[in-house]
């Protein structure tokens, strides 16, 4: 080969051809159920939780689930598949604030309205606002035909499938109901000691509500109500010593949130005296706040029965 023309035709068109093949392959795989997969057999998560849940919220979640669970990491490890018949998808995300959570929820609401939405209420959700990462991004939709995050998801899918790095990427960390089983990654060996060490920190609980976050919370609630979605809120059960130490701040937080939710919202308070048997039993926790499997089952059962799901 000795001319620019031939060179350009061969390699320029070759690059375009290979790119087209990659796009076709990625659409055929349809990792997030964006293009043709109906997801009846379930679509799990393998890589970034935020990107994955945002993309799954385009079609898979609204088409296959009736109820959504929202919240930060405190609810992300609740395995709603334990109650598969209720079709509850866990849209909670580790470290999520209200901006991120509503962005994912809004995407799911665009195509279908769920019957109910459960919200895990903890100051963390409204302590700040704004996207914490670039992972929830419109661009990711087209990224599903070929992008770094897609290929990373493929790679981690293989790593999990063949259990290559079980300590860092456990095989069954996620499931097709949005469950993020990070329990083994975060579990403290001595939960009581972990709670005690947390109590040494004066800012272990920041119960302040960011004003902009509260506005966004209101917008989310109004949006859900306008669509006729039944909202069920629950104040996340904090280990009793932590709740007791920060009780006055947490009560203030609860009062504000109650006002903003309105009287028509089903609201469960797992920190009141009725549930002290639960919050005083540290076997319900894996650390200073995240629930153990035993704790998760109890809380979800309570929500389902009390809220009539």
């Amino acid at each position, binding site marked *: *080969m*000795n*001319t*620019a*023309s*031939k*060179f*350009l035709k*061969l*390699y*320029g068109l*070759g*690059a*375009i051809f*290979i*790119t087209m093949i*990659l796009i076709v392959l990625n659409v055929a795989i349809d990792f997030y159920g964006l293009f043709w997969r109906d997801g009846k057999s379930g679509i799990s998560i393998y890589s970034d939780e935020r990107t994955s849940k945002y993309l799954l919220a385009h079609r898979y979640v609204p088409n296959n689930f009736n109820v959504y669970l929202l919240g930060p990491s405190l609810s992300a490890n609740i395995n709603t598949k334990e109650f598969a018949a209720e079709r509850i998808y866990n849209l909670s995300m580790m470290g999520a604030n209200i901006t991120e959570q509503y962005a994912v929820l809004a995407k799911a609401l665009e195509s279908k309205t769920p019957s109910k939405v459960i919200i895990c209420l903890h100051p963390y959700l409204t302590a700040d606002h704004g996207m914490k990462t*670039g*992972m929830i*991004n419109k*661009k*990711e939709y*087209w*990224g599903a*035909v*070929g*992008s*770094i*995050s897609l*290929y*990373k998801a493929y790679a981690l899918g293989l790593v999990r499938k063949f259990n290559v790095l079980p300590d860092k990427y456990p095989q069954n960390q996620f499931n097709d109901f949005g469950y993020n089983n990070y329990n083994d990654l975060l579990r403290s060996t001595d939960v009581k000691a972990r709670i005690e060490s947390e109590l040494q920190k004066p800012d272990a609980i920041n119960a302040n509500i960011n004003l902009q976050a509260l506005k966004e919370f209101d917008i989310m609630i109004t949006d859900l109500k306008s669509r006729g979605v039944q909202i069920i809120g629950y104040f996340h059960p904090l280990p009793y010593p932590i709740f007791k130490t920060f009780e006055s701040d947490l009560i203030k937080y609860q009062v504000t949130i109650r006002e903003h939710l309105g009287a028509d919202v089903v609201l469960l308070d797992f920190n009141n005296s009725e549930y002290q048997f639960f919050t005083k039993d540290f076997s319900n926790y894996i650390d200073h706040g995240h629930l153990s499997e035993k704790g998760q089952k109890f809380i979800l059962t309570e929500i389902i029965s009390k809220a009539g799901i």
Partner: protein
Amino acid sequence: MLFSSPEFIFLFLPTTLFVYFFLSRQSNFIYAKIWLLFASLFFYAYWHPANVLIIILSALFNFYASRLLYKSKSKVLLVAGIIINLGVLGYYKYADFFLENINALVDEPFPLLHIALPLGISFFTFQQIAFLVDAFSRKVQNFSFADYCLFVTFFPQLIAGPIVHHSEMMPQFSNPINQKVNLNNITLGLFVFNMGLAKKLIIADSLSNVVAQGYNHADKLSVMQAWVTSIFYSMQLYFDFSGYSDMAIGLGLLFNIHIPINFNSPYKAENIQEFWRRWHITLSTFLRDYVYIPMGGSKHGEWKTYRNLIYTFLIGGIWHGAGWTFIIWGGLHGLALAWHRFFSKFKVQVPKFGAVVITFLFVNITWVFFRADGWQTAINLLLSMIGLNKSIGTSVVLMNDFYSLPIWIAAVILLFGKNTNQIARNFNFNNSYGWKLMALIILNLIYLNSTISQEFLYFDF
């Protein structure tokens, strides 16, 4: 419109290129030039339409001033022309810096103006000052208004250089050979552009998160983290800026315009003088020809030479940004150049490897002032680098994951391997380069379609 944005790559560039060569083939070449001029102004207006007026007025003023200068050879006119150019640059770039410093000395502070910096103003101001000086010295040949405007606004070099010289550019715009499609240039241009794009999208952007995290917690870093932060920034800046320059060179080639190289493996430099012959070459050349030499250069004794070097680099520092950290950065480089000149007299031989390491360490440390958002951040990072920060032991997570580790390793290898100019010089229409081009295009398309930060660092200057 960023070079690395889909709208530039898939819409602006192909349309501009196609219409340019269509017009140059079908009609008088002047129409093709006018098209290219309008396309360049559109490219500039894409960020902030109002700023187009600034560049148009600046080009008009300097064009007519240079005509007058050519005829009159009036030194007063030259000085006035330079002052007006620097005045405009000063107003947009340094007004708030000036006021902040005044405010530090007075009881009743003046309100800051908060003027948005028009992109590329530092670059096109320097280019036009050079033009005025050369018009005064009658080094400028006959030139048309269209060629002059294209020299100032040609979009590949408009925003972040290279700082082109009229003697390199204007003859190319009027050369009839350049009016025809040249597939050799287009192929090489595509190759160089894709190399630059890969340097920016794949390497520089993968380093940026670590750098940002490090500088945001400069006072809490461990010694290792502080060094990683500073070295990553040195690499990020190189790949970002040289990537941009490569893209500009590649884009120029598509239009048969040869834009001068701007980088030549700067971190291989064995001393600070060599570094400045390899880093931002077009700026160094400008500073040498239009600042250092007019000040007397090295012709008035050793001490005045040292003084001239320091002054030149103080100007280079303030050119980069309105802040004391930039002045300190420039001053340190000026001092280092003076010291190197002094030390060279003793003819002490430092082994090549040691010389490269010493030079890199100096440059790396001075980049801390260049990158830091203020004096305190710079000092915090430098203290962290020697283990003297206030909060040692406070945990900061510098890297959330190591997915980019292969890219970081590749970056280090690329710093010391063949650079873009060397690879492009040997470019051939063979399979080896064909596969490289194909891989670059595919990788760039994947990265273009990914969510990553894409700001170019040198847009701020």
